[in-house]
């Protein structure tokens, strides 16, 4: 690679972070080069330093962090040494950033078009008229519906996938030399993700923009990147062209990333139904959320519920948990009719059905210690107190592969995966017969996901609990569910045992869900696009 071809060069980069009263090194000496027009995928687990690396490519560190060594060279400019003002002029002009959550990155009070052109006009790069025409052109290239009028909408009026594309348009406005994508599709449904990935890839290729694409999802990055860098504990452990990396990973850690998802639990077909939905309908206000839902959850079984957002799968969870009353049909639990709202259920029923919510971050009280959170169901349902309670909490923590030192910690001191374990431990504390898991693995890394799934299966083997496992990711339930319900627009479009649902012929919607799950294969997206083109 000739020196003039290199757009971004990092050498020996070190970044320090400050947490819990001591300094820890987040980035421990990274050397990286990015050529003009090249897409470099950066992959690694949470805490590997991916996002810090992405910010560093703009000469920026998070609050409380600092550069402690090395250099970053952007097209002959020293990003670490330059003043804030010089950096400000680069950002949004020659370097752009696309963040993970588009919804929180847009100002809800302004129209999309105004926000798309704001930086460009503010910097005097384009007149407002030019910028508007430019934005409409980008909306068109990004396949946004009705590009002429798209920008007149407010952020809440468009879907998450569209918003993520609008943010890409915003980043492309000034025709930057470098775009940093930080997990741009992580929060999206699989089917939406495909569309966003495709448009991002085509646009970046078309304009010859260099990109740093940060993700924890190997399958996603292999669709886009020319080269992949694997990050672990703040170091690049392996970097190679995509095809070579996928065909022939050399480092042990890289191989472990490739090897995830080989869970296989024998399918169970027996068991008395513990939960039964019969012709259930439900609505939020005047909009109907569920129509004619009928299914059984056999005792000690793992029932997966899959579908995109808006398919009604979370509504099913809310009904079982007693958060939403049904408007027609009936629900029975352990042979008896189940009262609609949780306030009408007796304590024994409340104990027997536990809910593990989607976001572990927000489902544990941030002001309670882990011991208090897990101990509370023990107090409430079994009257355990003091030392007795604590020793049971320690047992539960051990079952979740967490040490007794977690007893006194606060949720803010835990990682996402640890919080989800605490969340599951709290559900298990009640010794339930049925656990409703609402997207418990989304937002977690592949490795952490697998560890959590293994835990759930082990608990089931030991205690015979049933799961109603809600997810948008077919991949998650592929190896472990006994039964599957596929939901679409408030209806069950297909249901049956795992072997039936996963073997052809598929229902067309199931087919689409299955095809949308990214594969670790650089040609997967191309094939999918080709298949779409030929009806």
């Amino acid at each position, binding site marked *: 690679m000739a020196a003039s071809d290199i757009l971004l060069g990092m050498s020996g980069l070190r970044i320090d972070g400050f947490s819990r009263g001591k300094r820890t090194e987040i980035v421990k000496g990274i050397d990286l080069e990015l050529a003009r027009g090249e897409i470099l995928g950066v992959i690694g687990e949470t805490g590997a330093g991916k996002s810090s690396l992405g910010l560093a490519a703009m000469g920026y*560190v998070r609050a*409380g962090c600092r550069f402690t060594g090395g250099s970053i060279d952007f097209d002959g400019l020293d990003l670490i040494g330059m*003043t804030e003002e010089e950096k400000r002029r680069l950002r949004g002009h020659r370097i752009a950033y696309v963040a993970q959550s588009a919804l929180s990155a847009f100002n809800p009070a302004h129209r999309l078009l105004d926000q798309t052109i704001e930086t460009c006009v503010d910097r005097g790069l384009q007149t407002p008229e030019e910028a508007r025409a430019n934005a409409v052109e980008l909306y068109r290239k990004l396949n946004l519906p009705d590009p002429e009028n798209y920008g007149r909408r407010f952020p809440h009026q468009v879907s998450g996938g569209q918003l993520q594309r609008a943010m890409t348009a915003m980043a492309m406005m000034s025709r930057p030399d470098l775009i940093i994508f930080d997990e741009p599709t992580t929060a999206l449904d699989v089917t939406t993700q495909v569309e966003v990935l495709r448009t991002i890839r085509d646009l970046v290729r078309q304009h010859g923009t260099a990109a740093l694409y940060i993700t924890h999802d190997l399958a996603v990055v292999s669709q886009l990147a020319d080269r992949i860098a694997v990050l672990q504990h703040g170091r690049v452990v392996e970097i190679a062209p995509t095809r070579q990396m996928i065909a022939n990973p050399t480092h042990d850690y890289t191989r472990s990333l490739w090897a995830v998802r080989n869970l296989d639990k024998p399918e169970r077909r027996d068991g008395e139904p513990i939960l039964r939905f019969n012709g259930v309908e439900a609505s939020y206000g005047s909009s109907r959320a569920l129509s004619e839902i009928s299914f059984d959850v056999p005792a000690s079984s793992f029932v997966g519920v899959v579908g995109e957002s808006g398919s009604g799968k979370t509504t099913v969870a809310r009904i079982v948990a007693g958060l939403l009353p049904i408007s027609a049909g009936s629900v029975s639990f352990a042979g008896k009719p189940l009262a609609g709202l*949780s306030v009408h259920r007796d304590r024994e029923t409340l*104990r027997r059905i536990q809910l593990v*919510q*989607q976001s572990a971050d927000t489902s544990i*009280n941030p002001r*309670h210690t882990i011991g208090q959170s897990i101990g509370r169901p023990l107090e*409430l349902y079994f009257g355990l107190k003091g030392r007795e309670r604590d020793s049971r909490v320690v047992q539960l923590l051990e079952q979740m592969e967490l040490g007794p030192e977690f007893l006194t910690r606060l949720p803010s001191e835990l990682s996402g995966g640890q919080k989800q374990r605490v969340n599951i431990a709290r559900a298990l504390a009640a010794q339930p017969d049925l656990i409703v898991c609402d997207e418990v693995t989304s937002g977690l890394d592949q490795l952490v996901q697998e560890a959590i799934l293994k835990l759930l299966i082990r608990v089931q083997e030991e205690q015979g609990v049933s799961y109603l496992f809600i997810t948008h990711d077919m991949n998650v339930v592929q190896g472990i569910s006994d039964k599957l319900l596929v939901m679409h627009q408030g209806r069950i479009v297909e249901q049956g045992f795992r072997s039936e649902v996963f073997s052809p012929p598929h229902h067309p919607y199931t087919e689409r869900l299955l095809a949308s799950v990214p594969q670790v294969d650089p040609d997967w997206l191309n094939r999918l696009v080709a298949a779409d083109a030929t009806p």
Partner: protein
Amino acid sequence: MTRQERAQADPLQRRRIPISGVAGLMVIAAYLVVALFAPLIAPHGEAEIIGQALLPMGEGSLLGTDQLGRDVLSRLIYGARNTIGIAALTTALSFLVGGSLGLLAAVAPTWLELALSRIFDALMAIPYLILALVLLAVFGRNVTALVVILGLIDSTRVYRLARATAFPIVVSNYVTAARIRGESRSWIMFREILPNIIPPLVAEFGLRFSFVFLSISALSFLGVGIQPPTADWGSMVAENKTLIIYGSPAPLLPAAAIALLTVSINFVLDWLVNKAGGKQ
């Protein structure tokens, strides 16, 4: 040191208490010491007449005497005790009432929340001082009535704050979890929600304390607050106000004492609020 490095200076340094906060804390501590140990510090009694009326500063006593010949310094010191003590009691009462009802409104059924909110709205619609004046005129001019009436009027603001900050927490996942676990309403109010709204409430506590303090001084100035011969800063300003015409600084001293405490409390609050904001 480059600009970059300065911008990224050690977070430890940024966590230090700012100079205004330190000054505020010191002043508040000094006031508290004076208030607690007033009888030991004051050179003369609260209502003791030590000599001629209206003696200028330095003649016989450090700050001179008031219109009845009482020592201004001693009265200032006792005034700290009365004014601060009553303000603290009043603020505590307003938080007890307003905070509990605000939390209740957040978790209560809609009809109860609406009823409570309209009652508090109605109270807030009447100007603060006028309502206090009317109620004090009706229920008598004693310290108990003063504390109860001001506490209740002030609880309307606390109610609003507690209710508003509790609402987003009521719909949070962990409160949902508590609800489907079968927790009682009081557990949800005081064990799940309250710990999470403490930071804004603490900030508000200081602010309301300042306001109550000013209200008591204002009511005393108007003659319905703390009654003579009990010394308090508001009535001291009122009693000596005519002296301003003669160029005496005597009425300005209690006013300055009020101003200094209010400013100090706000310095400390700014620091506390910034600290809480920085944590998020």
